[in-house]
């Protein structure tokens, strides 16, 4: 945004946050966090099923999803904002996946109930209001269609895959593999028809989804333990899997257009070689994912680790908290990282701090790094004719100016979407609070 144009470019263009700048001391215990697409809001899923939205401008909560009914009643497992910032998808341990329309955030717009707790839910970009859900003890992920009046869930199961294991056992001549339960899923950002899932037995499965056909086009075994998280870069060519064997594996994912050649090339493995800690959560930086950030499991570690993905080296440890950190989200617009603490449920924000530029207070001043010996320039005190000066000013007024068209990208390369959804202010809650204050005075 325009403030970035007026600040020190070296500070602005730093690629990752450096310092803990804010702590949200939330009344409820936060389990997962996600920024809205423009970084305006932060959604926090809580252990009692509440989802609270914080306004990043004011640092205060502005709404609670379902405050007129229909909220979750068990801990939130997964939160996702839609691209335009108007809808939120939540999955919880109370077996529900709910879709919220922030225009009417007081009750869920649509919901679907599974028969066991939800692991993850993701929007599928290929389909309007469609999403992919992974559910406890299910072999396959589900596609839920929220565009319908009564949402439906269909198993995402390749036409060549067996529907269930018992069937496979009975037909011994059909060679099938037990991939385990599907735990995580992500949709390819550049190819909305491609869904990648990770299973409890260490398999990555790559599906191609079309309107009436689901194909399992590729499988790859990354380890012999279950996948905890799987992330894919915005560019779609980098994939990272956090698995229960205490390792984060970073792959280069290449595929041709008709998906006949797909390869996962292991680039780096990130492990804590000393303490052998598990990783709680992982997150990529924007565009081609030059950085990877992870939180560590266990009470001894309180930091986030940040690696450069091109070299696999640790470049930064984000410190400042004194408890174990769980979920991570990264807002690329204001370059900040949010993570929630395990014990207190507070949310911590790391960001870039740009020092004030005092020279900005006077119009003709310039800040210099160190003292420069003054030497008069050749033309410094030359008298420019009144006429020449006026001509220069006049010329400046001849140049065409554009007062209409908007900037498309900010200086960090993020898309600026002026139509990003704005959550309506809840006047009713202001009035309620006021009357509550009056009564208690």
């Amino acid at each position: 945004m325009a403030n970035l144009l007026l600040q020190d470019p070296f500070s602005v263009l730093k690629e990752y946050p450096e310092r803990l700048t804010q702590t949200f001391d939330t009344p409820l215990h936060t389990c997962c966090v996600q920024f809205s697409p423009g970084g305006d809001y932060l959604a926090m899923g809580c252990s009692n099923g509440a989802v609270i939205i914080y306004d990043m401008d004011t640092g205060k909560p502005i709404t609670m999803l379902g405050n007129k009914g229909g909220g979750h009643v068990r801990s939130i497992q997964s939160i996702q904002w839609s691209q335009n910032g108007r809808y939120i998808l939540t999955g919880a341990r109370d077996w529900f996946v709910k879709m919220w329309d922030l225009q009417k955030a007081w009750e869920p717009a649509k919901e679907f109930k599974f028969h066991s707790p939800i692991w993850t839910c993701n929007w599928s970009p290929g389909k309007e209001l469609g999403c992919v859900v992974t559910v406890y003890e299910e072999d396959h992920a589900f596609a839920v269609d929220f565009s319908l009046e009564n949402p439906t869930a269909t198993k995402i199961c390749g036409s060549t895959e067996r529907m269930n294991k018992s069937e496979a056992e009975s037909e011994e001549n059909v060679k099938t593999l037990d991939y385990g339960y599907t735990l995580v899923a992500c949709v390819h950002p550049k190819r909305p028809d491609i869904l990648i899932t990770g299973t409890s037995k260490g398999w990555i499965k790559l599906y191609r989804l079309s309107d009436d056909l689901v194909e399992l086009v590729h499988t790859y075994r990354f380890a012999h333990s279950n996948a905890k998280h799987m992330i894919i870069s915005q560019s779609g060519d980098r994939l990272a899997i956090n698995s229960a064997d205490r390792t984060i594996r970073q792959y280069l994912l290449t595929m041709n257009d008709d998906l006949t050649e797909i390869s996962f090339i292991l680039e780096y493995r990130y492990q804590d070689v000393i303490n052998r800690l598990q990783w709680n959560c992982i997150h990529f930086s924007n565009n081609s994912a030059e950085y990877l950030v992870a939180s560590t499991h266990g009470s001894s570690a309180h930091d986030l680790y940040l690696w450069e993905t091109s070299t696999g080296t640790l470049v930064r440890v984000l410190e400042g908290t004194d408890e174990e950190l769980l979920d991570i989200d990264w807002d690329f617009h204001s370059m900040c990282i949010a993570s929630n603490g395990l014990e207190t449920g507070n949310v911590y924000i790391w960001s870039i701090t740009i020092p004030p530029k005092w020279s900005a207070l006077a119009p003709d001043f310039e800040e210099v790094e160190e003292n420069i010996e003054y030497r008069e320039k050749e033309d410094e005190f030359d008298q420019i004719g009144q006429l020449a000066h006026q001509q220069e000013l006049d010329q400046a007024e001849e140049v065409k100016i554009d007062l209409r068209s908007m900037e498309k990208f900010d200086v960090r390369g993020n898309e600026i979407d002026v139509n990003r959804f704005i959550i309506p202010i809840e006047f009713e809650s202001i009035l309620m609070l006021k009357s509550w204050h009056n009564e208690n005075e």
Partner: protein
Amino acid sequence: MAQFQLLGCLKQARESTVPHTTAKLSPDGQHVALCEETDIEIYNVKGQTEVSLSTLHSRPLSDLCWSPDSQCIATASDDFTVIITHVKYGELHRLVGHTAPVTALKYTSKGNLLCSCSMDESIKIWDTLTGTLLRTLSAHSEPVVSIDIPLFDSSILSSGSYDGLIRIFDTATGHCLKTLTYDKDWQSENGVVPISQVKFSQNGKFLLVKSLDGILKIWDFVRGKVVRTFVSEQSKSLRYSCGMDFLYSADETLDPIVVSGTENGEIVCWDSQTKRTVQRIQGKHADSPVMDISCNGSLMCSISLNGECNLWKWSAN
């Protein structure tokens, strides 16, 4: 060529009433709100009075600002306070903190922040949900009389002060990012020319500035250069801070129009690109200074000190 056509007179001038300084079109383009002593009068654009809302201000109002959802109106008063009034339910918040009359108000496009500036030389940023003060920016040495925030970019805030400086602030940190000032030859004999109003272009790349002498300039504020100058006639008295605004017509190929009110009751319109005068409205407002100009879509609302408020539409003959 399109011109302003008078749609109607919302309010007639009345003798011996308090000065009128503000009338604003609502963001949804359906209403006009103006101040009458300590009350807010709301008209619909068809010209009918809709409602008169009382505020609990104790002194007259100097400015008002609609919230972006057109549901609330914030009012700035000489009693040092700002009150946010919900059109349907009444008062929501009273913002106390300024130590001198409040001069102007501006909501961010998200409606979550309200900025106010005051004769106490400070700018304050308030949280509209809780009614609490978030931060105070003190960076002028004279009363701050105008503030603006770009429509789609609330990361910056510009302010104009009687100290003759235009500053750009970072709304999130409160740091001053840039200072614009006219060259030294712009100083009149009595010192600097006070700034009377600042207004961002819709895309947030340029800043239209009016000084108390009635001259308007468009700044490329990132580069710190004046790119357009509009002069109707010099105001010698330096008494009234007359209104101005950009008018963005629906046709996206056309450049916006700069609309400005003068001390003697005229409204002058220029093409922002060519600087050509496209219209000069005379014979309305009875020689009373046009204190506020508010544009939304093709509609324009003007109010003069004597209380006459007119509604105009930009349309082809």
